[in-house]
């Protein structure tokens, strides 16, 4: 039996006095797509950011690929290398071209020769439909294009897990689809993905499991069908009635 890519055990996080994650335990299996939903402030993004140690959880265990990661003893750069992250605001490097953005990780972190990195970068840009934008600077791109570059940049590190933190929330409505399509593609190819999103259509279509979070807790888990069509918890019902 293959082990989970991510295993969280009783994860707790505080921002000062604010208890933002309460006893979060979950597992994500290889090639699984999980989606986190919930009101803003419910801890979804923080949870995602704890998985690649952009935030530090004060209590609990984080296991990546069957190994418990202690942020003080482990080389976090090595851990992060294998975990791609896509941000709400893209965070592309504005002083680099699209191609330079994509090859920055492989060249600087993995030591991939520039030529190889460029070839692989071009394939990734084709995959996200932006091969003709390789030499543009990010500011010349639309939001949807930027986010697709950001996805290609994360994929260039050949990650075992991709984290998406509200990847379409900063986009104009007409640009959401192109990003979701790239993500759907990725899911089909077997990428393990953890996605925080308000796109319920995407969750229903792609996710294997949906986690509903409220006040730092996971209060309901299930298949998209179960969560969306027959939510059990009153909070889940209320949240879904508000957004659907």
């Amino acid at each position, binding site marked *: 039996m293959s082990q989970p890519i991510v295993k969280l055990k009783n994860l707790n996080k505080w921002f000062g006095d604010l208890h933002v994650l309460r006893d979060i335990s979950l597992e994500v299996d290889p090639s699984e797509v999980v989606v986190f939903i919930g009101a803003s402030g419910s801890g979804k993004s923080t949870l995602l950011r704890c998985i*690649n140690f*952009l935030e530090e959880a004060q209590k609990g265990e984080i296991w990546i690929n069957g190994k418990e990661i202690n942020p003080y003893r482990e080389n976090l*750069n*090595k851990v*992060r*290398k294998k*975990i*791609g*992250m896509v*941000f709400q*605001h*893209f*965070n*592309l*490097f*504005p*002083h680099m071209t699209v191609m330079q953005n994509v090859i*920055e*990780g492989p060249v*600087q*972190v*993995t030591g991939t020769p520039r030529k190889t990195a460029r070839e692989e970068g071009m394939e990734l840009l084709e995959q996200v439909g932006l091969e003709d934008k390789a030499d543009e*600077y*990010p*500011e*010349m791109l639309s939001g949807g294009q930027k986010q697709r570059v*950001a996805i290609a*940049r*994360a994929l260039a*590190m050949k990650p075992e897990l991709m984290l998406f933190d509200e990847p379409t929330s900063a986009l104009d409505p007409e640009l959401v689809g192109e990003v979701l399509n790239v993500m759907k593609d990725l899911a089909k190819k077997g990428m393990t993905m953890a996605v925080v999103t308000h796109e319920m259509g995407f969750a229903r279509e792609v996710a294997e499991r949906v986690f509903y979070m409220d006040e730092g807790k996971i209060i309901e888990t299930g298949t998209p069908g179960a969560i969306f069509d027959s939510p059990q918890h009153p909070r889940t019902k209320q949240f879904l009635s508000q957004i659907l």
Partner: protein
Amino acid sequence: MAVLEFIKTYSPLFLPAIWITIQITVLSILLGIVIGLVTALAKLTRVKLLNRIADLYITVIRGTPLIVQLSFIYFALPGIGIELSAFVAGSIGLGIHNGAYIAEIFRGGIQSISTGQTEAARSLGMTQSQTMRRIILPQALRRVIPPLGNQFIIALKDSSLAGLITVNEIYMTSRRLGASTYQQMEFYMLAGAFYLILVTLFSVVVQKIEKTLETSKRQSSEIL
């Protein structure tokens, strides 16, 4: 036409002084940039001791007059066996002085880059120093060109204080010539004119650099 005659006669006597002013300004700025960058990074690390040292340096330098700093280096340091020529003492003094201001300029520039940039770099697996070198500094340096240019101009004018520790720069030369010809006012005005010309030239150069950077790299206006 007496004015033109005066300018024509005495301007050539200023040429060595102008050259010294330029040298001392450029040297002090270069030194200031090195000190400023190191200090800014020291201020931004999580190592408390380095924060303290950087703070102390900035506080002392910004809190005391330049003329006191220059005098200390030139007149007081020989007392503990450090003897520097006026030119070297002036360059170092001005460099240390400018460093404190440039440090704050760099710190502001670095902090103005959104944390999302750091997060994106770190999530690729880049180390802290790779992130600083490859992602943050290149963006920050572009942003600090205007305030840095401003500091260049201040440094140029401040170099006149090196005259008071016997460096033969523009101001000192005007005083010397004025005293020996009893035309002090005219020489002060001539010195002022030279500073004005140099500052104008500096400004033009800085603007050129700004323009080149803007077009060659397209400064991003949005929040990234």
